[in-house]
């Protein structure tokens, strides 16, 4: 009897243990097929009246992402009363969580995605082609012609609805500090060196940078790469050029010189955004590097004292003055091809993208968007002077490159992120930088 009871207990334990591994009824569809299968939605927009909850994986971390998202959700409730969004906040984890979702067949219905992950998901059939949805929802009719590069993938398909325009890396500066120390806003490399010297002599950090984040160090290197070659790091990303070519070697040497000249604060590679921004906004740093989304914040904190400048020109390369770092790459709201409501999800993704742009225009002082905003919509406050300046100067920009997250080759992305951060330290040499990058580019081209 005892034996039987013991056996029963053991089996009950086993069953209980294995029950945890069982699939639930509400689970999302099975893991994607291993061969590339890319689904397309029906041409007709989906009309589903019954209440539907869509899982969405999106950025929701600061005003620049919370305000537009909240606005889009608010509008969605009016136009799609039957749709409820269940937000899963995007983690700053190099796409690790999204990758895990995809690997376990648990991808949300809608998810924000960057270019390198689009490429991976394309291969594994985890991303839906949105060509038809883009047409049927009218998204393409309302898209800015200048946003084509961020809408269409290299293979000519649409995989995500972008919610931002071609954003740029801007070199911000504090006008008041430049005036106080009688420093000319640097237009050339020589003037930049002079500015660094003066600010350092007065205990002002010449440029604050949150170099703990590797995308900004990539942008910093790219800024100098564009001084010598307007295409910047995009040529390295495609494997078209090698880091040992003159433009890229010179860019590394220039950045190294500036680091040694004291352009950045001690321990810059361990400074996060809050610390770097605080230095700039508290008047302890004269310049600051970030994307154009910083315009609203800097205008709010420094008022008319905040401005942006063209990157300083290198002698002999004056033609590259208007080449800017940044720019767009395909990315935005993508749809899970295995979603139960994939047609509706595609429609909602397009809708969210448009409303997100609207909110950026109205509340974030940003007129440079992927989608045209209805003329009846007015910004809540006039655009900051810096944004007006950018809007006016847009026509002068001769070329743009890419942000780190817009790079197409993940191998290169990791290499340039690591190496550019290394270059921000005094004892790392441009020779090491070039060697390491060339090795990776060689592997990419194999």
């Amino acid at each position: 009897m005892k034996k039987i009871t013991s056996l029963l207990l053991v089996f009950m334990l086993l069953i209980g243990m294995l029950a945890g591994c069982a699939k639930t009824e509400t689970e999302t569809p099975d893991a994607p097929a291993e061969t590339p299968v890319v689904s397309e939605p029906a041409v007709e927009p989906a009309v589903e009246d019954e209440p539907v909850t869509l899982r969405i994986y999106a950025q929701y971390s600061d005003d620049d992402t919370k305000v537009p998202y909240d606005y889009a959700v608010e509008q969605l409730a009016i136009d799609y009363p039957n749709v409820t969004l269940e937000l899963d906040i995007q983690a700053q984890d190099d796409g690790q969580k999204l990758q895990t979702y995809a690997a376990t067949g648990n991808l949300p219905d809608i998810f924000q995605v960057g270019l390198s992950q689009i490429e991976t998901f394309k291969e594994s059939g985890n991303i839906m082609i949105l060509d038809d949805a883009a047409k049927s929802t009218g998204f393409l009719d309302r898209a800015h012609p200048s946003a084509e590069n961020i809408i269409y993938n290299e293979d000519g398909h649409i995989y995500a609805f972008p919610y931002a325009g071609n954003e740029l890396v801007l070199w911000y500066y504090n006008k008041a500090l430049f005036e106080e120390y009688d420093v000319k806003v640097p237009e050339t490399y020589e003037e930049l060196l002079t500015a660094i010297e003066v600010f350092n002599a007065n205990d002002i950090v010449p440029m604050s940078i949150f170099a703990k984040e590797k995308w900004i160090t990539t942008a910093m290197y790219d800024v100098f790469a564009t001084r010598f070659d307007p295409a910047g790091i995009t040529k390295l990303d495609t494997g078209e050029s090698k880091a040992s070519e003159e433009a890229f070697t010179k860019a590394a040497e220039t950045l190294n010189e500036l680091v040694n000249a004291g352009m950045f604060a001690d321990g810059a590679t361990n400074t996060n955004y809050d610390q770097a921004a605080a230095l700039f906004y508290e008047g302890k740093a004269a310049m600051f590097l970030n994307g154009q989304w910083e315009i609203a914040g800097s205008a709010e904190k420094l008022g008319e004292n905040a401005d942006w400048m063209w990157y300083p020109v290198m002698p002999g390369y004056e033609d590259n003055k208007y080449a800017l770092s940044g720019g767009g790459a395909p990315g935005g709201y993508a749809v899970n091809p295995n979603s139960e409501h994939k047609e509706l999800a595609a429609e909602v993704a397009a809708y969210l993208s448009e409303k997100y742009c609207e909110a950026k225009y109205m509340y974030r002082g940003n007129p440079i968007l992927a989608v045209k905003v209805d003329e009846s919509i007015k910004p809540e406050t006039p655009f900051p002077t810096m944004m007006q300046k950018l809007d006016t100067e847009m026509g002068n920009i001769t070329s743009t490159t890419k942000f780190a997250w817009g790079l197409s080759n993940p191998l290169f992305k990791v290499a340039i992120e690591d190496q550019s951060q290394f270059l921000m330290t005094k004892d790392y040499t441009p020779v090491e930088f070039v060697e390491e990058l060339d090795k990776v580019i060689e592997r990419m081209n194999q």
Partner: protein
Amino acid sequence: MKKFYGNKLAIAVFTLPALSLFSIMVFYPIIQVFYKSFFKWNGLSAGTFIGIDNYLRLFDDKLFYLSNKNGFIFAAVITVFQISVATILALAVSSVKLRGRNVFRIVYFIPVVLSVTVVSQLWLSIYNADTGLLNKFFELIGSSYRQNWLSDRDKAIFAIAVVNAWQWMGYQFALILAGIKSIPTSYYEAAQIDGASPVQAHMKITMPLLAETYKFCLLISVTGGIKAFTEMFIMTSGGPGNSSYTLTYMMYSSAFRSGEFGYGLAAATILVLECLIAILVFNRVFKTENTSEGA
């Protein structure tokens, strides 16, 4: 009892749940790691079998050697610091003459119960080049030894190792203290009668009797050091550049940042092997010591 152990079926049945759990949760994933390390795989698609290419590339990668070097530095720093400090503190706290030893016992253990994130943030503040406590301390004593603790390619790994050593010292302390408490006081009384000083008593009684405890402490320190990840992930993201990469961080970076899961798993396989070798070596060393003592 003899009857019970003679019943093979009962043994099989009773060990089945734990064995199944271990096989599913530990053994199977390790086999998968090893198997997938022979593939070019992005973590989602089927992958392509490429034989030992990932390993050949790994052994040709400077980053692999740097990661290993960092792992061993990390392991050495935490092992030396934790075991030596934990031993001294445990011996001190075990002394009946020490007043308030219960308070010390709790205080030394507090960092262990803190989250690694909290501890890392705390030390990030301490290491801050401009406003950090450490540089301020050097300033205060009139020294010019100000450092960019976490932005220096040579110092960063040591600085991070100190954080781990500080946090987990309390754990080793608790283990060693528990070991000391289990030694009968009569041994020390006998030593005292024989005229041994407290130091001699500890050297001749405490240390030999704590061999098994030390073996365990060494194992968790060394394997913990080799597979270190969290502190560098939070404090430096492997930087500056890749100067504070460990093998685990390299595995993470290859798999999740570069999308090269096969390559990352090759690094993981080497990591598992390194930990296994460490375990075997310690077992052999301590077994030899026990045998020679027995003889």
